[in-house]
């Protein structure tokens, strides 16, 4: 296809793809009257009122929801990075009995749909007394400290296979134990894989809904996605502005990650299944 034609096609597709996002931003800054009357993308009068109204729309402010979401997301990142790194080092670099079998099991859990496990897990956590109570986040967090996100284990195993074996061999000949090799060779060299895991853990947890919906039942414990669904109940026209304003705010962290790590996000994870 000739160059001008290619550009024209791409710009048209970009316009269609970005339209919903631009419309969301525009609507967030429109007054209730303008939302009904002005169908254009750009508001005639920029009004920040939707943000203040949405923020205090429910008995608990959105500040609390954002803190809850940030806490769940950051702790999930910590859990995933540490536990998946440990498992990946064992599966990717150490030689021990049944390693091949455990690796196959890990690959098997990759394709296991999470929805299948949610009911028995809920029952199990409930019997442990983790559901409800003062701090209902254990069921959301504990699995991530036990490397159950097989995707990240797989990602790190693939990455570690690319680290030259000679480095381990040399260290071991020098008398280093597997623990020292882990600490001084593998850990520093695995940084790119750790960063990718951290960023995607954060974004996926921040956007996650199903599990948070199931485990969080008290308004003050809600995370942002669960709180946003409260807007759906109120169908009145006046709720659209605040609903959009809070939806927009909820996407800001993900968007910032996108701007800061665009190349890494686009190339890092999607192609990891193809390499190696």
């Amino acid at each position: 296809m000739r160059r001008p034609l290619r550009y024209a096609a791409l710009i048209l597709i970009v316009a269609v793809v970005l339209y919903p996002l631009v419309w969301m931003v525009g609507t967030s800054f429109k007054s209730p009257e303008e939302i009904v009357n002005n169908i254009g993308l750009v508001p005639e009068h920029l009004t920040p009122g939707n943000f203040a109204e949405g923020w205090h729309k429910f008995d608990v402010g959105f500040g609390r929801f954002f803190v809850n979401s940030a806490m769940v997301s950051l702790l999930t990142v910590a859990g995933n990075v540490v536990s998946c790194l440990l498992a990946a080092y064992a599966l990717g670099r150490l030689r021990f009995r049944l390693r091949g079998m455990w690796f196959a099991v890990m690959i098997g859990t990759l394709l296991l749909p999470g929805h299948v496990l949610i009911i028995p897990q809920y029952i199990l956590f409930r019997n442990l007394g983790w559901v409800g109570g003062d701090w209902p986040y254990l069921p959301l967090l504990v699995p991530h400290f036990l490397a159950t996100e097989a995707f990240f284990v797989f990602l790190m195993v693939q990455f570690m296979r690319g680290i030259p074996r000679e480095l381990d061999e040399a260290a071991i000949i020098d008398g280093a134990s597997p623990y020292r090799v882990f600490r001084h060779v593998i850990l520093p060299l695995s940084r790119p894989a750790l960063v990718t895991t951290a960023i995607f853990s954060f974004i996926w947890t921040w956007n996650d809904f199903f599990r948070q919906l199931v485990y969080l039942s008290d308004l003050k414990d809600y995370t942002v996605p669960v709180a946003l669904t409260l807007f759906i109940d109120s169908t009145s026209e006046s709720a659209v502005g605040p609903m959009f304003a809070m939806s927009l705010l909820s996407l800001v962290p993900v968007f910032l990650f996108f701007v800061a790590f665009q190349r890494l996000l686009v190339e890092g994870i999607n192609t990891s299944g193809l390499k190696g």
Partner: protein
Amino acid sequence: MRARRRENLPGYLFLGPWLLGLMAITAIPMLLSLYLSFTDYDVLTPLSDAQWVGWDNYERMFTSDPAYWHAVRVTVTFALIAVPVKLAAALGVALLLNRAFRGVGLFRGLFYLPSLLGGSVALAIVWVSMFNRDGAFNSLLALVGVNGAPWVNDPTWALETLMLLAVWQFGAPMVIFLAGLKQVPAELYEAAAVDGAGAWRQFAHITLPMLSPVIFFNLVLETIHGFQGFTSAFVLSNGTGGPVDSTLMYTLNLYINGFVRLEMGYASAMAWVFLLAIGLITAVLFRTGRFWVHYSDSEGQ
């Protein structure tokens, strides 16, 4: 190089957390859910109160619960349409981007953005509002004199708007296609051009066969993903699967039975059938893949 000794102790120490997770978070719950699928259990009482009912849950699912079959139909329809359209869009845009030109990185990034945001509640809310009776889409239609349907409130169109939301997130498979296209040797195209093959023949006889492993990879991934759609259907219908059950996706139906009606035994049976169905579909995909996936190195066969 000397033979390395075995590292059993450190191996299992490093693998420890994962093994614990495999047992406690995955294996035991799976067995528990298999047991529960043969019981009647409402979660509010201790687990010992679960009543053994034999195959009743499965029988009810297959013979006397119209909502169940309806949910199966909705989910299969969704996956059967949304996945191929999404992959076609992804491949088409990847072909447009598969050249070195100014701004290619920016385009790629912008196309990928919906894949990062699209699964969120926030985006589903915006999407549903956009296809409301007086949403932005109908305003655009009104400009050209068309009187649009109330898409998300119309049982014939509600699922289609969710398909469109899924297709909108074509960026993730597009990036994978782009990586695959980079692997196709340029000599093949040069040789074909010398032989007088046009753009279409080059696409059909070089690009498609060379790309077939990547197409297959995307197809498996997106199909499994497509069957699990939950968030957008929940937001559109406020958790009910409406209007008139038109967006009752399998996972939403499972959620309603398990966590709203508290029929945990019945929902567990649904979960197990879901697991088997996904496994079966994946196996079928791999079977048919033999006929149309070409691996350039023979070891992939």
